[in-house]
């Protein structure tokens, strides 16, 4: 608009110049203006007034334009104080097939089933430019209907399920089943420089690929590599951390150091020993031609302590006695290579666990003490143990995923295959485990992902007798997942 008005004013200038009285000596005698001259003088006055009016309006419009631009820039410059709400959701369908079932089939459930996976919400708040609060909350339908105890006439126990049904006070006569929530992380961070961020709270342990990718829309597979069942590192920790990034030429170096309660029976609530856990991660990333890469190493050292609390009457006291105590060291390494259409993810985890003599737990049957908590509960309830104390152990495992983006122009469809090898504890039994997965990952406009995969789990060494969990050397699983980020 200002350009248009300026053009109009410029166009008027020659006309005004024509109407200007000729400059000349003041001594020239004035002649009586003719009617035509008076008419021209009147037009000239009007044009001058019009020029002044246009110049005034031009000035006003320029000021308004500048003010609008400034206001827009001010309004849309990213603010110090922001709040964002986002998250992801996934819905699954899966089926297991165990060739010869013992307990595993009943516990996992061989019937094809729909599964409500994750409904995670992020609360991302920046109260000040250098501060950020991030909370991620997972909503679950569990534990409704989960098995609370198994029936055994020998032990006198009855079968029971968890019941979370209550009366709906709003809709009279109806009831509903309440679920549960899990706080995945909740941290407050202060970041003044790129090379230093100081944080506090509940944070995800930065190790491996799956734990950093974290959410189903980002992860390639339908479920975590079995390597993660063994939790060589704690999935999350409560404590303090510092992290940062430095750039050396085209190389990006990232570090994280942490101090936390470490692993424990109630580590999310409080530490029950004096030993704090230490952790560290160092990662480097760069590019070479069309290949981008990232490599990382992670380290964790901590003490696990479980205690029992006993009330004594004489003297009256609450005595806290350690029951299980071990020191653990975990090491991890990971590598990501991307050269479209190929992608490779590799990770290795290892964990050394050394018990304090006098605080060793009873050794559960091989494969159970490292397996899902559900299995540990089962073993505890039915006293499935070898009647000996757990030895020190070292477990390690590795997982490799190779993905290939299919050459279909219209869709982002990747085929992937993964190989996982786990040596859970080579100190007392040959229970090494191998799994192979093949699948497809179709990413629709980035936010919606459909996945399908087939997994084969295999114990290459004959399982030891008595076979409690799985009766055969092979377990099969088909999984599909629909994940969406919002």
């Amino acid at each position: 608009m200002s350009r248009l008005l300026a053009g109009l004013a410029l166009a008027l200038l020659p006309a005004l110049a024509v109407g200007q009285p000729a400059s000349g000596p003041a001594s020239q005698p004035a002649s009586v203006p003719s009617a035509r001259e008076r008419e021209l003088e009147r037009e000239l006055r009007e044009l001058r007034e019009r020029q002044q009016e246009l110049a005034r309006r031009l000035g006003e419009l320029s000021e308004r334009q500048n003010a609008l631009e400034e206001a827009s820039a001010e309004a849309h410059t990213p603010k110090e104080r922001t709040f964002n709400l986002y998250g992801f959701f996934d819905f699954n369908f899966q089926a297991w097939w165990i060739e010869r079932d013992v307990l595993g089939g009943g516990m996992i459930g061989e019937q094809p089933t729909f599964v409500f996976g994750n409904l995670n919400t992020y609360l991302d708040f920046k109260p000040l430019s250098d501060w950020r609060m991030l909370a991620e909350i997972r909503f679950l339908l569990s534990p409704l209907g989960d098995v609370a105890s198994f029936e055994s006439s020998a032990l006198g126990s009855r079968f029971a399920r968890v019941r979370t049904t209550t009366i709906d006070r709003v809709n009279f006569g109806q009831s509903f089943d309440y679920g549960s929530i899990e706080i995945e992380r909740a941290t407050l961070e202060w970041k003044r420089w790129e090379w230093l961020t100081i944080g506090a709270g509940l944070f995800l342990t930065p190790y491996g690929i799956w734990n950093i990718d974290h959410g189903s829309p980002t992860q390639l597979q339908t479920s975590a590599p079995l390597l993660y069942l063994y939790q060589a590192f704690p999935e999350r920790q409560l404590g303090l951390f510092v992290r940062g990034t430095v750039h050396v030429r085209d190389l990006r170096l990232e570090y994280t150091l942490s101090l936390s309660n470490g692993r424990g029976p109630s580590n999310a609530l409080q530490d029950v020993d004096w030993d704090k856990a230490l952790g560290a991660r160092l990662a480097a990333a760069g590019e070479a031609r069309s290949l981008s890469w990232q490599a990382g190493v992670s380290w964790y050292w901590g003490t696990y302590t479980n205690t029992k609390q006993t009330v004594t009457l004489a003297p009256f006291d609450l005595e806290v006695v350690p029951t299980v105590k071990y020191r653990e060291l975990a090491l991890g390494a990971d590598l990501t290579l991307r050269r479209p259409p190929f992608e490779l993810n590799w990770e290795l985890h290892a964990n050394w666990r050394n018990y304090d003599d006098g605080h060793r737990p009873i050794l559960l049957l091989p494969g159970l003490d490292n397996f899902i908590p559900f299995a540990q509960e089962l073993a505890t309830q039915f006293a499935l143990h070898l009647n000996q104390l757990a030895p020190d152990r070292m477990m390690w495992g590795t997982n490799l995923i190779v993905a290939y983006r299919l050459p279909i122009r219209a869709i982002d469809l990747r085929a992937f295959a993964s190989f996982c090898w786990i040596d859970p504890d080579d100190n007392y039994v040959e229970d090494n485990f191998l799994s192979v997965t093949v699948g497809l990952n179709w990413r629709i406009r980035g936010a919606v992902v459909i996945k399908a995969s087939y997994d084969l789990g295999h114990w290459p060494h004959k399982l030891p007798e008595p076979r409690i969990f799985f009766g055969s050397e092979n377990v099969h699983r088909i999984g599909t997942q629909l994940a969406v980020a919002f």
Partner: protein
Amino acid sequence: MRVRRSCLLAALLLVPDEAGGQEIDPRERARAAGTLAVVVHPKCPLSTLSRTELRGIFLRQRASWPGQGSASVLMLNWPPGHPIRERFDRAVLGMDPREVAAYWIDRRVRGLGTPPRSSASAILILAIVARNPEAIAYLPLAEVTPRVKVLRIDGAPAGHPAYLLRARPR
């Protein structure tokens, strides 16, 4: 005048990233085919950036100016689906629109934060860069004003045959 007003109205429609999917105006395609300039505040100490540095900034993998560890960078993008954005993403980030959308979603899920704000208005982008010493953006070279500074890429000035974002031949 109508064009100017519509630009101002468009300026008010700053959208968060990852939207995309709208019809593309042929005039916008023509705009995007010209030389694109990477602009910063005149007081910004830099005069050139490498493609890798530029990529790091626009992927939020680099939060400060190269060699200026304490100064944070405020980057401004064009909306997803805009031809200028798509051209920049392909040339500098080496990503197509699907990969870019997936990249920002992945960062959010990992807890690394949200994508930068974006605007389809060169006027607004210029105004923001002109008033923020830490801002960086890109826009058609023909629309750049003296209120901002144009950076070289890999040492090549805008318009140079070796310039990464030079005009595409028709």
